[in-house]
């Protein structure tokens, strides 16, 4: 199948469930809200190496935040609910609590919740105080700068992680242009993040390696430089660069929507071929077929 001159491979992205939360961070100005959000979502590209995957979902106007200040919303995903709670406590505690003027709120109404502010309050060493407004409890933690406000419980949902598209192009310049366009188009979708730097990964991985201690290693079938070395290459002779975009979402539909938008944008912007990563269909219950995403 061709789309704007790019070949869309008849394959599917194999996604799997992960628990997700939405964190709303506000601050005195947009720059500090973004700073705290970037810190919160730093070193969270892959659950394999970082214990969680996270990214900034979007920037928020003051009218869209609980306390009327500028903010950002970020999504964070972990393999299970307990892991999600631990990562939230660690990251909000180290990255948001410490960031000047920040406050932190739950951004997800969900049946399941995890305790975050109720753990972070202990930093107040007994001087913390709580407030209950409209059924939600907030903790006021005194800090040198003033007060850190954090909501006690954060909603947790079983989301979908590992949605992806893989962009192949003649060389690095059109590949990057296509990937940037795809990531940009995906950012307009609410409820998804692309956890890699700028949304783009240059080092897609396969499961396992020849070294027993390494659970994942380079995806040699998609490395252009190994085309002449590996037994089963997936790189055509006219492709010199491959980039991947991984998408995590709070539900399946936003992931599909983000993939569809990214696919179109990549095809329009220089990709010669778009494919997707899977594990033969045995690992994840969600199979998102690329041909179903093409209008």
């Amino acid at each position, binding site marked *: 199948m061709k789309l704007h001159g790019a070949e869309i491979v008849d394959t599917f992205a194999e996604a799997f469930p992960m628990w997700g939360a939405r964190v709303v961070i506000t601050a005195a100005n947009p720059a500090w809200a973004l700073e705290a959000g970037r810190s919160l979502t730093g070193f969270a590209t892959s659950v394999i190496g970082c214990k969680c995957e996270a990214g900034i979902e979007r920037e928020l106007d003051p009218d869209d935040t*609980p*306390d*009327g*200040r500028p903010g950002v919303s970020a999504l964070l995903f972990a393999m299970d609910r307990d892991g999600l709670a631990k990562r939230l406590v660690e990251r909000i505690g180290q990255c948001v609590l410490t960031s000047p003027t920040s*406050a932190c709120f739950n951004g997800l109404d969900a049946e399941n919740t995890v305790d975050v502010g109720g753990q972070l309050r202990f930093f107040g060493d007994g001087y913390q105080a709580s407030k209950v407004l409209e059924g939600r409890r907030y903790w*006021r933690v005194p800090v040198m700068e003033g007060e850190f*406000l954090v909501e006690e419980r954060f909603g947790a949902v079983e989301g979908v992680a590992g949605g992806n598209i893989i962009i192949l192009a003649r060389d690095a310049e059109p590949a990057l242009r296509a990937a940037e366009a795809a990531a940009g188009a995906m950012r307009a979708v609410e409820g998804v993040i692309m956890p890699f730097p700028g949304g783009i990964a240059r080092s897609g991985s396969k499961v396992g390696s020849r070294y027993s201690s390494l659970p994942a290693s380079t995806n040699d079938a998609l490395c252009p430089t190994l085309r002449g070395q590996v037994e089963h290459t997936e790189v055509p002779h006219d492709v010199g660069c491959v980039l991947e975009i991984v998408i995590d979402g709070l539900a399946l539909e936003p992931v599909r929507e983000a993939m569809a938008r990214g696919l179109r944008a990549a095809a329009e912007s220089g990709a010669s071929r778009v494919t997707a990563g899977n594990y033969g269909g045995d690992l994840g219950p969600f199979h998102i077929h690329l041909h179903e995403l093409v209008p």
Partner: protein
Amino acid sequence: MTLTLSLREQPAVPLEAEVLSPDRLAGSGRDEIEALPVWHGNERTRVGEFFTVSGAGDDDVRIEGDLGRVKLVGAGMTAGRLTLAGDAGMHAGAGMRGGELHIEGDVGDWAGAGMRGGRLVVRGSAGRQLGGVYAGERAGMRGGEIVVGGDAGAQAGAGLRRGLIAVAGRVGDAAGLRMLAGTIVALGGLGARAGAGMRRGTIVTMAPATPLATFVFSCIYRPPFLGLYLRRLRALGLAVSDEQLEGRYARWCGDGLNLRRGEILILEGGRSPSVLERLEADRRHQIAGLDAPRR
């Protein structure tokens, strides 16, 4: 359609009418409602002796007339909406656990006393012991919201344990007397001895105030949680200004006679001298061997 009760004649002595609550009225037929018992002084009588009943409704009940001599209207209600198109007597909404009680006129003493949940909205003014504590009880209001469009009498929020009391006008003496926690917002200012004996909780005033000598000044800052509360009050119809939303507040901790975990927040600004200027003036007087200036 709304179930409507109209006061036919003023009772000669106060009428105790705890049955005037959506829990008892909603879904009942006219005969059933007219037969409900009320106390007229020491005489047991029927609702039908004083009220005419018209219409029908599930959760929405309206009572018309001057009920200034009718006590306990909406007391203990758990759900639904009750509107009083006029004044209400003592103990209106006392012990309510849910639903909404709207009083379009003034309300007598003890309105919302011992309240556990729900919302009490008074368009006019409230008497003494708004959301207060009954003698012998360990705590007064334990949850819910009280919003008063006019003034409130003395000892509003006495014994408050949880919940929000917001008054657009002025609150009388000893607001938050021996309060345990919770929040009182007095947009129009506080009377004397606010927070006397308070253990925890917050009293906020938008007018200059001099806390008791057992309160200690901490700092001037922008309390992050207050943005949530003031935006909530704005949504409930109170005239909260941008200056109040974005303002800086002097934090006084107290009561030093009782744990000192509570706080009085006083909006800085306007024509009154800053708390820092006043503290500096006091210090200069002490250095000069003079008593602090009288205020």
